[in-house]
């Protein structure tokens, strides 16, 4: 847990590989960070969990999204 980020509103300039293709594609989210995070591998690649999504792609099927740390922008910071 990262208590400093818990409850913070943020935007995520997200996206990834389009499934079944070699194309990259962006997806934007706005929501609240839970403070939960995990690090993938070494050097650590940090991911934060975002819930209460007020902006998400049309028909996005989930209630949460994991966002890469450097693709997150805290709303009250910008």
């Amino acid at each position: 847990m990262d208590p400093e980020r818990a409850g913070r509103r943020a935007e995520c300039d997200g996206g990834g590989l389009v499934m079944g293709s070699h194309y990259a594609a962006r997806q934007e989210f706005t929501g609240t960070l839970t403070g939960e995070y995990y690090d993938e591998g070494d050097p650590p690649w940090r991911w934060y969990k975002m819930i209460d999504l007020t902006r998400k792609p049309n028909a996005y099927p989930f209630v949460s999204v994991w966002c890469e740390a450097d693709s997150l922008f805290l709303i009250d910071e910008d």
Partner: protein
Amino acid sequence: MSQDPLHTKLCDQLGVEFPIVSFTHCKDVAVAVINSGGFAVLGEAMHTPDEIEADIKWIRERVDGKPFGIDLVLPASAPAETSLDEISAKIPDSHREFEQMIMKKYDVPMPKESVDLHQWGGLSQALGRAQLEVLLEERVPVIASGLGSPAFLLDAAHERGSLVWGLVGRTRQAKRQLEAGVDAIIAQGFDAAGHTGDMGTLSIVAEVASIAGDTPIIAAGGITTGRHLAAALCLGASGVWTGTLWLACRESDIDMIIKERLVASTAADTVWSDSISGFTMRVLKCPWTEEWKNPEAPRPLASPYQMILSSDYIQGANDARRGDLMTEASGQGVGFVTEMLPARQIVSDMVEEALGVFDDLVGLPD
């Protein structure tokens, strides 16, 4: 003007003659551009670590020590993992029926084999990580991230002598990456092929260049001529990132039917559509994209639902080589891709035209 206007800080960073970067999924194109004085970045997002390692070796054997780059799509967000069956079960009947209507109306053949939709969600992080390990191990001269921020890998890359580039669609992404210390920013505008941000190339290149300091900016999106190159340098870029330009070149391995469509197309033949993947991306118009624009059509679903819906159409059209159905990612500069030329000539034509522009504007020394 006392200097060669095409000799930029990007040329110095890479040790190349011209500030032209080819982004390609074809190794032959990459090698041809590198050996013509430009620079090439090979897109390897869909390849396994073993395939990437083999491709790096293949390129190294053919470029005589000249630098090259490898592009990965590092994800920037990831939903919870779930199975394809679970996802497929949630696609509304109305969308299934619309898909079937298109398949029937255009007599689209079914794919020869079931479409292999690669896994997604958390697995994309693990895959990205494994691909990255190969690039670090191989000390690839340039590691490019085609989407997510590469900030986390900067130290590891620099320790191995690799440069790291990040592709951005927004100025705030560039600012974040510049603060982290990336070695170049690719500022990609709305004119580009595939998925783009919503800022035009003119706007994003100028904005990012204004905050970049000494870090080279590479302009991307709709760039297919020497005039585009000259304009990009005037905007503050140090080079151009070009993709569509190489799709129809002689060395390119894409289907000849698509090459013929590309050389016959103009910007108006491209469409920014979310009907294929659920992500908006610029592609050549085809019946699938046009049908989803009809007012009666259902609203395209999010990724990955829409990709599952479109996959039979896309693969069926490709398998049958139906030029009337096929599509390909294409930028708005496609109107200037009018011949299937060798890569070397494309580089040469672009350089000559850009120099001509500068000569007309300010005069070049003899």
